[in-house]
């Protein structure tokens, strides 16, 4: 592996310079001739019956070209998982922000003015906003056919938990709460939708799931799948949020009604109230350990708020239930998870996907166990580390595992030993670990894996086609590096095509930290195929055997006699001319060694590789305000092999920043069913002044199943950061944070209590 030339290099993103020049066209920058602008009328009530909608006045406003409501849709119930969505509310609105009507006009101002002219008569209904309250008998029902507001129930069990907890020397038992937070990507959700004369839709969306979203949208629009084309331009961040959302479908309905392209980009306010924020969870945990610190068993109960309709909440709750079971050598576990409807904005994927919430809880609990038993928290993790080349309690086949090295590196970087033994008042250090997946076979039934197409033109220029999604994390560059390495050409010869479902391979998309491993293996397979075809031509030109041909730095050569060479471009040209103009096209795919888990036990290896990480935070607490400042942060990650170390570091730093924001400042405040802070003034995300030095540390055990040994980084970058900070707060003050976000007022009150004792 040490003779890799491009993989492992910290090169700039291939599209970075364009972005610095403002030349990149994001979704919100696009326009088409004859385009209309749309705006959506949203429910002002958390739960109400719609008695009447009168759009007559709105239709007559000059510049308005269409007004749409439920009557303009096929009226089909659909959804990415549970089919409880409709494009517009039919006769009931179920959350503040629910789509009621929409306008397409010649400009945004007119569209917005028209919204004010739409008269809706509502009859308010009782509503419920907290998932625990929603489960109680007598609670208002969000959907009449879902008793107890239960959207889904999940159970998993292995071994004998009750006995394991009985046998423990110490059982820690507590309830935790992780709040609803907003992904806060800088470009709001939206799309540009066009329709052709045959009624075929072309969606230009910033979406993480181009191929999957077609399936849901074709159903919603009541058209065959081939009538939906999805193109993915560059877009401004996602962090999980940009999956299915009604904003795109409303746009399509308006496009169909007018026969013209329509663009709707959410206002920031609308994006807050009708985007898809994180699933809030109540988590009850029982964690048992022997006095030597060996974990015996764990039982958890998760209650997650889905909001008014299920996007992916039930998969997120189930992930919360059992992903951490493969972080340590658990043998006895039981988890129950409830996905509960509430009259609030539908929640969905946010970096970590349930594993963030549960990692916060487990790692806080581990800290309490360490404290009770008088064992160093880092040592406790190492004692229970699942380790490499093993199979976890749920049948996950862990090949590479760099957890121990992550713990060692992160603790060293912060000066853990020194700071734990020489404690300064109101200063502390805390540690937290995580595990994750690189792809999740359980998420999709059809198959998992990745595919690619590598096209080599007569000029030697290489174009890579993939089906995943670059939301800014650097997917394009990672794929380009992999292909450049495999073909043996300089990186600048590679371009990565925009994902267009008419041309690109079917890809499940970028989520579950799968992009680099699945998509990367897919394009690697395609590059290997393209190489084979070119090597035949080169062999001919060099009068050698195809098996004796290799390519480096843009030259094909005979192995062992590198002075006998011919430029890649010349080979490409000859190949094209020999084939009467047909380009070299390599197609390839990756079939991961995973299984769909057993329906009942959930047993089965669901991912080809599992990344691990360890975060260590140092904090200081202000005794006069209760304010917490993070002074220093080290984040060590087992990524298998970093395709681009600089980009991997950037992901880690971004993840830690989001974790810091979640822990110390971010909260969507709901009162009377309304989000009270739908804007950046009152929903605080970290600025440059809030982030300390973050030291990213890469651990590379080289994963056998990854492309050039790579696993993933996206979600693990965030997962341990919340509990690293709260464990540091515990070390600094003895105060255990059981609810996110940390409240300075509560810390101050607690500090005052202690002083008066």
């Amino acid at each position, binding site marked *: 592996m040490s003779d890799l030339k491009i993989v492992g290099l910290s090169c700039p993103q291939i599209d970075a310079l364009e972005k610095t020049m403002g030349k990149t066209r*994001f979704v*919100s*920058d696009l326009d088409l001739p004859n385009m209309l602008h749309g705006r959506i009328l949203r429910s002002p009530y958390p739960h109400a019956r719609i008695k009447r909608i009168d759009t007559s006045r709105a239709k007559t406003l000059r510049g308005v070209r269409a007004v749409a409501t439920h009557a303009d849709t096929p009226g089909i119930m659909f959804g990415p998982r549970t089919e409880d969505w409709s494009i517009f509310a039919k006769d009931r609105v179920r959350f503040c922000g629910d789509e009621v009507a929409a306008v397409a006009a010649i400009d945004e101002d007119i569209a917005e003015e028209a919204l004010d002219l739409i008269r809706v008569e509502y009859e308010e209904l009782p509503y419920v906003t907290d998932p625990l309250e929603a489960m109680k008998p007598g609670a208002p029902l969000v959907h009449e056919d879902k008793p107890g507001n239960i959207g889904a129930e999940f159970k998993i069990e292995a071994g004998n938990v009750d006995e394991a907890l009985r046998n423990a020397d110490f059982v820690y038992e507590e309830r935790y709460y992780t709040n609803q937070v907003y992904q806060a990507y800088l470009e709001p959700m939206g799309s540009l939708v066009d329709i052709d004369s045959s009624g075929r839709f072309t969606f230009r969306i910033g979406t993480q799931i181009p191929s999957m979203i077609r399936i849901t949208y074709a159903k919603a629009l009541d058209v065959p799948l081939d009538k939906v084309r999805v193109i993915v331009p560059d877009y401004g961040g996602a962090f999980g949020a940009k999956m299915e959302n009604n904003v795109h479908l409303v746009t399509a309905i308006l496009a169909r009604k007018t026969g013209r392209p329509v663009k709707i980009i959410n206002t920031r306010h609308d994006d807050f109230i009708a985007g898809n924020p994180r699933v809030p969870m109540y988590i009850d945990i029982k964690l048992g350990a022997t006095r030597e610190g060996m974990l015996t068993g764990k039982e958890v109960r998760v209650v997650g708020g889905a909001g008014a309709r299920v996007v992916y909440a039930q998969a997120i709750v189930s992930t919360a239930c059992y992903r951490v079971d493969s972080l340590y050598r658990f043998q006895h576990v039981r988890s129950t998870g409830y996905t509960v409807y509430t009259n609030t904005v539908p929640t969905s994927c946010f970096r970590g996907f349930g594993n963030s919430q549960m990692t916060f809880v487990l790692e806080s609990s581990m800290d309490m166990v360490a404290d009770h038993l008088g064992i160093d928290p880092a040592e406790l993790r190492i004692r229970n580390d699942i380790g490499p080349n093993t199979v976890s309690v749920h049948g996950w086949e862990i090949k590479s595992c760099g957890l121990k090295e992550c713990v060692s590196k992160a603790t060293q970087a912060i000066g853990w030993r020194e700071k734990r033994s020489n404690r300064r008042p109101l200063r502390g250090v805390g540690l937290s670990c995580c595990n994750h997946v690189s792809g999740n076979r359980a998420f999709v039934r059809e198959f998992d894996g990745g595919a690619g197409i590598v096209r080599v033109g007569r000029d030697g220029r290489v174009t890579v086609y993939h089906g995943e999604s670059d*939301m800014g994390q650097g997917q394009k560059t990672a794929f380009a590096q992999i292909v450049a390495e495999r073909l043996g050409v300089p990186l600048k010869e590679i371009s990565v095509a925009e994902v267009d479902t008419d041309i690109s391979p079917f890809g499940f998309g970028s989520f579950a930290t799968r992009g680099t491993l699945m998509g990367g293996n897919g394009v690697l397979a395609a590059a290997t195929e393209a190489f084979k075809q070119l090597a035949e031509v080169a062999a001919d030109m060099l009068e050698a055997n195809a098996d004796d041909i290799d390519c480096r730095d843009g030259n094909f050569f005979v192995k062992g006699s590198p002075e006998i060479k011919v430029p890649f471009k010349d080979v490409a040209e000859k190949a094209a001319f020999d084939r009467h103009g047909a380009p070299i096209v390599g197609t390839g795919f990756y079939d991961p060694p995973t299984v769909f888990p057993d329906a009942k036990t959930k047993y089965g290896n669901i991912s080809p590789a599992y990344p691990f990480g360890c975060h260590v935070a140092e904090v200081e607490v202000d005794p006069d305000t209760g304010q917490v400042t993070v002074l220093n942060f080290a984040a060590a990650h087992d990524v298998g092999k970093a395709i681009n170390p600089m980009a991997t570091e950037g992901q880690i*730093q971004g993840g830690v*920043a989001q974790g810091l924001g979640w822990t110390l400042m971010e909260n969507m405040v709901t009162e009377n069913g309304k989000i009270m802070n739908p804007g*950046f003034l009152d929903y605080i995300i970290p*600025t440059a002044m809030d982030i300390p030095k973050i030291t990213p540390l890469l651990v590379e055990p080289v994963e056998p199943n990854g492309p050039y040994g790579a696993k993933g980084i996206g979600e693990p970058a965030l997962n341990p950061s919340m509990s690293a900070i709260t464990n540091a707060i515990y070390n600094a003050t003895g105060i255990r944070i059981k609810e996110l976000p940390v409240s300075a007022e509560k810390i101050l009150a607690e500090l005052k209590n202690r002083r008066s004792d």
Partner: protein
Amino acid sequence: MHVNNEEYRLEVEPNRILVDVLREDLGLTGTKKGCGEGKCGSCTVLMDGLPVNSCMVLAVQADGKSILTIEGVATEGKVHPLQKAFAEKGAVQCGYCTPGMILTSKALLDENTAPSEGEIRSAIAGNLCRCTGYSKIVEAIVSCTTDESK
């Protein structure tokens, strides 16, 4: 007004905001809209050398002023050292905050060629970034200061 050293004479409705005029009337889509409320900094342009949130400036307020957008930062085909540094140091991920971030940084360095890291972080505090955690953005700006040992 002058935009990127070119003079424009426009007739605009008095309620139109600068960011929309730049993006829609002049086709300069490099300036982004992230919130429309003056909170995220994605719409930052330089007005007579000072960074402003162009979503909070009425177009008519730019009358007689000199505006610099991201499209005007590279001159005569040469990218600005900040643009090169941002690209090379990994300070660009999704790129949506990047134009605003670069303009704010340029205004800072035009006024103070050797700011401290604290001064840099304070200057860009009005430019939100959700992807990078700011670390590599600060590194990129530091690399463009005259005293690189800071």
